[in-house]
């Protein structure tokens, strides 16, 4: 410990004595680490498991329900109203939810303020809440399929009611009253696995959760990618028609459930085929959350390419810092040689270099975290979809400090080796 303190004091002295040099070197490394860190933060949030403790138990249901035979067509993850309702009726899954996204304008019906707030609606079924583990602050889900009842998210509750228990209050949507039966706590899913498309995969959770039947009865617009092979005049008219707009997720807690569900959807598909509806080859799939997110290419390939570029940039920064250090060790070889001459072992010189690299690494880490945060904000400005999702959290701070320390050490390694291998007799002349 005494030698550590000694080397630490020497390192402080070196940093002060060569401050301009070290500012340049630390900045060089910090820029590289910062850019790398910002990129990791983005990729980490993109590729994170939104619901890790049960992601293997939640499955998206994809049916080969397209009415025409197009064998090369991609998997269809949206289904018709009738298919979704059929899936809801089985008792295989622990929880089942079907949904589509809509958008409405709403206000507190009792307020004198007539300003309406734009709100994203998840038209769904009560199974949504236990399946996603949406956390209720007050109240709970609706119980009736066509109830004029809704659950609201924390953000809307804050916007309209200023927070608090709003259960029992009424929102006006398109001129009609809807009773609030539940209020959620602040809640985020990164990515929003149940809606990992339409540029929504990194948005916040929804403002309003309403019964799907109620949403369709009230003609709440379908605000998702949809397809149709026949004309439908309204949302409520979608029932019984070849209009594809609903997604289905099920929670299957064991292999037996999964096998049973696969058998069920295959049987259903065959049954429909026999009726001349489903002409494509059987390709019904159950994809768990992570398989589903991978299938939806949540991690943008451009980001992976950018990650490679930032890795190379970091390598260039290390190389530059190492070149700078080589020059410094060259100029400091007299002191190193003198220390060796009076009894320092090579390992002592290495130990001293290691302590200096730790000090440089800590300075670099602080600056790198600052740069990383700045680069992340710039990235969010350039890619608004990343807002609310990417941040430099505690694990990333630890990773950042680790990378800064390692890069600092790597930068010092070659100059240290060169320094130790210089013949003593020449350095002291």
């Amino acid at each position, binding site marked *: 410990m005494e030698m550590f303190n*000694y080397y630490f004091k020497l390192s402080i002295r070196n940093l002060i004595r060569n401050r301009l040099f070290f500012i340049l070197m630390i900045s060089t490394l910090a820029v590289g680490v910062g850019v790398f860190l910002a990129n990791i933060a983005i990729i980490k949030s993109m590729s994170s498991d939104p619901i890790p403790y049960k992601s293997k138990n939640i499955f998206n249901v994809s049916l080969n329900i397209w009415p025409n035979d197009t064998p090369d067509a991609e998997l269809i993850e949206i289904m018709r109203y009738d298919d979704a309702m059929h899936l809801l009726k089985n008792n295989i899954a622990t929880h089942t939810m079907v949904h589509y996204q809509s958008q409405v304008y709403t206000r507190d019906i009792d307020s004198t303020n007539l300003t309406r707030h734009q709100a994203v609606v998840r038209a769904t079924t009560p199974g949504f809440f236990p399946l996603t583990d949406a956390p209720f602050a007050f109240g709970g889900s609706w119980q009736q399929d066509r109830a004029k009842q809704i659950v609201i998210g924390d953000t809307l509750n804050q916007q309209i009611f200023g927070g608090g228990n709003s259960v029992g209050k009424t929102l006006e949507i398109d001129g009609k009253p809807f009773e609030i039966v539940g209020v959620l706590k602040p809640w985020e899913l990164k990515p929003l696995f149940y809606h990992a498309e339409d540029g929504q995969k990194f948005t916040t959770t929804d403002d309003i959760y309403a019964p799907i039947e109620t949403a369709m009865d009230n003609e709440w617009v379908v605000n998702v990618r949809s397809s149709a092979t026949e004309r439908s005049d309204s949302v409520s008219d979608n029932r019984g028609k070849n209009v594809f707009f609903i997604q289905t997720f099920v929670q299957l807690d064991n292999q037996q459930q999964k096998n049973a569900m696969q058998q069920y959807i295959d049987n259903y598909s065959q049954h429909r085929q026999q009726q001349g509806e489903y002409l494509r080859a059987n390709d019904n799939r159950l994809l768990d959350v992570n398989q589903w997110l991978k299938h939806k290419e949540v991690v943008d390939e451009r980001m992976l390419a950018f990650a490679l570029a930032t890795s190379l940039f970091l390598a260039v920064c290390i190389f530059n810092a190492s070149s700078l250090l080589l020059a410094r060790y060259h100029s400091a070889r*007299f002191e190193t040689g003198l*220390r060796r*001459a009076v009894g*320092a072992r*090579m*390992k002592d010189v290495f130990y001293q270099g290691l302590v200096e690299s730790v000090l440089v690494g800590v300075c670099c880490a602080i600056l790198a975290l600052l740069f990383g945060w700045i680069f992340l904000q710039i990235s969010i400005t350039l890619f608004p979809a990343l807002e609310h999702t990417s941040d430099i959290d505690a694990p990333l701070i630890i990773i950042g400090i680790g990378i800064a320390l390692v890069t600092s050490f790597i930068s010092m390694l070659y100059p240290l080796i060169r320094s130790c291998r210089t013949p003593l*007799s020449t350095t*002291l002349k």
Partner: protein
Amino acid sequence: MLNMNNISRIYRSDTIQTHALRDFNLQVNAGEFVAVTGPSGSGKSTFLNVAGLLDSFDEGSYELDGVNIQGLGDDELSRLRNEKIGFIFQNYNLIPDFTLFDNIDMPLRYRSFNAAERKRRISNALEQVGLASRSNYLPSQLSGGQQQRVAIARALAGEPKILLADEPTGNLDSLMARQVMELLHTLNEAGSTIIMVTHDPDQARAIGRNVQVIDGQITDHSVYAPVNNNAPIEVKA
């Protein structure tokens, strides 16, 4: 104390081999003061570097204070340099932004001395060279002669078996050179073994034993009578 037998040191480049030392034989006993003289490029500094374990040798054998040097690793060589050898360089080799205390403290740091023991040794060493009151000075605040005395104090603080001095007065004017030489003689009289490379024939003659090196070999080996008597009393080939 120092026993070199048939030491050879060859520097090789792509096309040239230079024998800096060849069949170099020298024995130095404890308490001796030996002057090594010779023209530039004769091998004096190479001898001192090999003797001080700053450079390796290609052939021969070398024992320092009973320890056979051949085959020792970096840890052992470093320990020997630290514990048994004190270096005095022509250009002092003090670290300019270290105080005298910190400069002398440097070799002691690589031994397991506690702070009190290091302080005691530094105080004693500075006392010996007459600079006890200036331990917090920087080298730049001292004259050349005083800086060389600090270098000597650094060499003495480790209580080495042998002092190796490479033209210690080469950068000093005659007055300061005389003061430094008087200090070295005093140390020798107190029991220190000293080997000093010098260009100055007067200084060499004032030292008990002279070794002349030419082309990497000892060509003249003289032992003189007491310090102030310049007449040779014995000559070996």
